[in-house]
């Protein structure tokens, strides 16, 4: 009964395309013609079957399709296991459910309106995209009955079908909200979580994504975010902090022990995230070119450096290197290299990883315990801090050898490009933080007063697995 609001909402959401999909198909025909990059829309006889071999680079398309799969793999099983292992046994399914349900929910939002708001275009300096791609119009394959050409058309984005681009970017739209879940793990109401994520995705993620990656405001400033340091990590990290502050600490936080219930899952999840991150970062080259290889290498080396650094700090300070430390270091390195991967050289990635692990280590240990908030799985400490650091380091290490942003002049601070880029990056970071914090706060404020953010004390005590989902993670009966 009391969850009915969301149930209704979800059904509504699901029903929407039922009404519109066919329209979309109808509408698509005339509109398709105006797509600038259609394949072979001239110089062919009428009634030609889809022949896109001329323009699609199959290598690029293969790579981005694989990268899309890899990014989905990051959310589940990757993040699901990483986070799942860190909570207490009674909440493991709560975490898994958030990840898997978000895979469904955000994908539907993405195809309905998300992609359009992000990548619909909108001109230089715009804040959101326009509605050209609503319901995947002009994205899915279309049919052209025009005078010059009759046949199927494949809307393109560079050398790959726009559908591939939509898929790849759509996977980012899943993992970003999923990352936030770490902040309110073990106590968030499921219905509120779902509604919050739909709104947050629409109001925070989409504009940021557009502003950085679709020629929007921040892009027009010259801000650079290769694969989502700001769009994904700062946004989710800051949102997580606000979530943690507004939903409050877990019952027993600070007094009861809440050790990870299954560090093997966390370690396995880390490795899966690392694996998937290659798709995330190297896929962001949108081509299987040298840039992709460079981003791949930078990503790998930063992760590697992080994996070494964090446990070495622990070793030095506490006498023992921990598995969770190695995992945290890897993720910190990966989050931090994300904005930089396609701008800096792989060897600089090693430095990025070292700095990332060091800063995140202190954020997760000293800072958090001093401030006392319960960002349960350290989303802010790792993704927030890592993302901010990475955006700034991009300004420092960016090299024209990797991407020639300045017509042949040096780019980053280190290679002699001056403070320009660093300054812009700083502004972009501040902008991202502000926007995220403001919207997240408002959304949660409203949701707290309407649906409520938190499960009841009894439910929290019983564990979300039983109280929210009526299931248990492990049942060892014979």
């Amino acid at each position: 009964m009391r969850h009915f609001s969301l149930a209704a909402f979800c059904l509504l959401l699901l029903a929407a395309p039922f009404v519109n999909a066919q329209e979309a198909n109808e509408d698509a025909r005339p509109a398709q013609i105006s797509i600038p990059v259609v394949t072979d829309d001239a110089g062919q006889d009428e009634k030609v079957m889809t022949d896109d071999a001329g323009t699609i680079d199959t290598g690029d398309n293969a790579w981005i399709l694989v990268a899309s799969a890899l990014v989905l793999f990051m959310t589940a099983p990757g993040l699901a296991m990483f986070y799942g292992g860190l909570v207490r046994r009674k909440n493991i399914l709560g975490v898994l459910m958030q990840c898997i349900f978000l895979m469904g929910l955000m994908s539907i939002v993405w195809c309905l309106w998300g992609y359009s708001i992000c990548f619909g275009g909108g001109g230089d300096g715009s804040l959101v995209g326009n509605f050209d791609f609503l319901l995947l119009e002009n994205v899915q394959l279309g049919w052209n009955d025009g005078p010059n050409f009759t046949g199927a058309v494949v809307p393109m984005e560079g050398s790959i079908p726009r559908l591939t681009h939509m898929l790849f970017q759509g996977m980012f739209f899943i993992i970003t909200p999923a990352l936030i879940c770490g902040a309110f793990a073990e106590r968030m109401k499921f219905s509120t979580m779902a509604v919050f994520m739909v709104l947050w995705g629409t109001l925070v993620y989409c504009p940021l994504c557009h502003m950085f990656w679709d020629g929007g405001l921040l892009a027009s400033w010259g801000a650079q975010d290769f694969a989502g340091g700001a769009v994904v990590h700062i946004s989710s990290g800051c949102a997580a902090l606000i979530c943690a502050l507004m939903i409050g600490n877990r019952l027993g936080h600070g007094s009861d022990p809440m050790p990870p219930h299954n560090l093997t899952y966390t370690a396995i999840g880390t490795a899966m995230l690392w694996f998937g991150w290659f798709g995330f970062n190297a896929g962001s080259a949108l081509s299987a070119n040298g840039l992709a290889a460079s981003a791949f290498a930078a990503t790998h080396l930063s992760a590697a450096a992080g994996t070494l650094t964090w446990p070495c700090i622990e070793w030095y300070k506490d006498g023992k290197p921990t598995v969770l430390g190695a995992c945290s270091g890897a993720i910190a390195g990966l989050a931090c290299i994300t904005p930089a991967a396609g701008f800096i050289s792989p060897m600089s990635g090693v430095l990025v990883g070292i700095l990332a692990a060091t800063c995140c280590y202190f954020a997760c240990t000293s800072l958090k315990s001093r401030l006392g908030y319960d960002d349960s799985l350290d989303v802010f400490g790792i993704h927030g801090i890592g993302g901010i650091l990475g955006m700034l380091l991009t300004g420092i290490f960016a090299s024209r050898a990797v991407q020639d942003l300045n017509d042949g002049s040096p780019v980053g601070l280190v290679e002699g490009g001056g403070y320009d880029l660093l300054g812009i990056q700083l502004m972009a970071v501040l902008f991202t933080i502000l926007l995220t914090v403001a919207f997240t706060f408002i959304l949660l404020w409203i949701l707290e007063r309407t649906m409520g953010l938190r499960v009841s004390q009894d439910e929290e005590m019983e564990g979300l697995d039983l109280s929210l989902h009526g299931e248990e993670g492990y049942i060892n009966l014979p």
Partner: protein
Amino acid sequence: MKKVEAIIRHFKLEDVKNALAEEGIQGMTAVEVRGFGRQKGHSETYRGTEYAVDFVPKVKLEVVCGDDVLQKVVDTILHTAQTGQIGDGKIFVSDLANAIRIRTGEMGNDAL
């Protein structure tokens, strides 16, 4: 009849079981337990949050035996489970009113 409950170290279980079996004890039951005692637990640190684990894993071995063999059972356990280090565990002995073998319904010492 007596019930002997011995809380011992994990890695002593096989030794104790074998020693008891050699002494002619035909049955026993083991349970995983966690013990709190003089033997300090350890502390684990997860991302800087220290978490003291005061309970250490132990095994509780329950042996029901006739009064006549009690001493032998206790001695055997005592010898086999001892390492001399804090945390070797305890043996608790209590009286048992009756024992029944479910398969046959036999009672008392016959049931063991």
